[in-house]
C-alpha cells in the first residue's frame, strides 16, 4: 500500500503511505451506458441485414464498414477519457500530509492538502446496496481551523483506511515531537485574584494519541 510515486511539491524525506482512488465498481457503474453504445452497430447490422438487405450492396457496404471502424475508434477514445477522469481523481497520504487531487474532465484540476497533525476527526460511511456488497464508502476527514474538510468518496475498505489514517496521525504526532510539548494556554484561572466570569473553565489536555484531544495544543503551537 506504499506506491513509489512522485508528485509536485514532494519533499525529499517524505514517503507516500497510501494512494487512494475510487472503487473500480464506481467506474463501471458510471459507464454502463457504454455497453449500450458498444452493441449498437451489431444490432444495426443484423437489423439492416434482415430488413434492409440493400446495405450489403456496393455503395453502402464499404461506407458502413468505415463508419463502424470510426465509431469504435471514437468509442475507445471516449472510454480512455472516462478512465482518465476516474484515474486522475486521487488521494495521496504521505507520512506528513493528506493531498486531495480532484480532476474534472480533462482541463480542470483542484489540489488541496492538509497536514496530518491538523486532523481532528475521521468518520466513514458505507451507503447503499452496492457500497455494502463491494465494500466501498466515504471517509470524512475533519481538520482544524478554517481549512476545508476532506471527503474521500467511494473508496475501497473505508474502515481500514480510516484506521490507517489514524495510525499515520499518531505516528506523525510521535515523530514530530508534538506529543511531549506541555500545554501552554489558556491557564486555569487563579483564585487569588478577581476574574471575569467569561474566563475559559477547561484547560486543554495533552495529546493522548486521539486526534480530538491533541488538537488544541497543535493549534496553539501553530
Amino acid at each position: 500500500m506504499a506506491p513509489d510515486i512522485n508528485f509536485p511539491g514532494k519533499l525529499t524525506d517524505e514517503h507516500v503511505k497510501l494512494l487512494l482512488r475510487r472503487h473500480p465498481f464506481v467506474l463501471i457503474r458510471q459507464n454502463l451506458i457504454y455497453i449500450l453504445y458498444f452493441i449498437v452497430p451489431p444490432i444495426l447490422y443484423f437489423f439492416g441485414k434482415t430488413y434492409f438487405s440493400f446495405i450489403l450492396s456496393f455503395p453502402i457496404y464499404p461506407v458502413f464498414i468505415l463508419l463502424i471502424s470510426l465509431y469504435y475508434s471514437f468509442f475507445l477514445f471516449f472510454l480512455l477519457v472516462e478512465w482518465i477522469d476516474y484515474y486522475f481523481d486521487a488521494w495521496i497520504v504521505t507520512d506528513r500530509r493528506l493531498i486531495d487531487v480532484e480532476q474534472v474532465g480533462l482541463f480542470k484540476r483542484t489540489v488541496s492538502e492538509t497536514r496530518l497533525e491538523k486532523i481532528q476527526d475521521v468518520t466513514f460511511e458505507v451507503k447503499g446496496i452496492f457500497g455494502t456488497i463491494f465494500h466501498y464508502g466515504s471517509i470524512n476527514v475533519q481538520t482544524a481551523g478554517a481549512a476545508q474538510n476532506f471527503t474521500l468518496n467511494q473508496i475501497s475498505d473505508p474502515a481500514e483506511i480510516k484506521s490507517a489514517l489514524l495510525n499515520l496521525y499518531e505516528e506523525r504526532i510521535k515523530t514530530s515531537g508534538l506529543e511531549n510539548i506541555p500545554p501552554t494556554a489558556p491557564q486555569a484561572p487563579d483564585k487569588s485574584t478577581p476574574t471575569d466570569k467569561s474566563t475559559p473553565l477547561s484547560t486543554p489536555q495533552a495529546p493522548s494519541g486521539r486526534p480530538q484531544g491533541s488538537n488544541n495544543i497543535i493549534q496553539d503551537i501553530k
Partner: protein
Amino acid sequence: MNIFYILIGYYIILGILALFNIFVILHIVKYKYLGPYYKIIFIVYFILMMGILGFTHLFIFKFDWNQQIYLPSISDFTDGFEGSINVQLNNR
C-alpha cells in the same frame, strides 16, 4: 463520383482522432499524480485500437476503391416533373 473520396474522408477523420490521442497521451504523461498501473491501461488501449484499425485496413486493402458511385442526379426527379408540366401546358 469515385468511392475513393470516401476513403480520403475516413483518413481525415482518423487523423483528427490521432491528434486527440496525442493530446490525451501528452496530458497523461505530464500528469504527476500517477500510480504505477497506468501503463497497463495504455497498452490495452493501443492493442484494442490497433485491432480495430488493423481489421479495417484488411478490408480497405481488399476492396477496389476505384469503383464509381452513381448517385441519383436532381434531373432524375425534375425531368419527370417538368415533363408533366409540359404535358399539362401542351394540353391547354
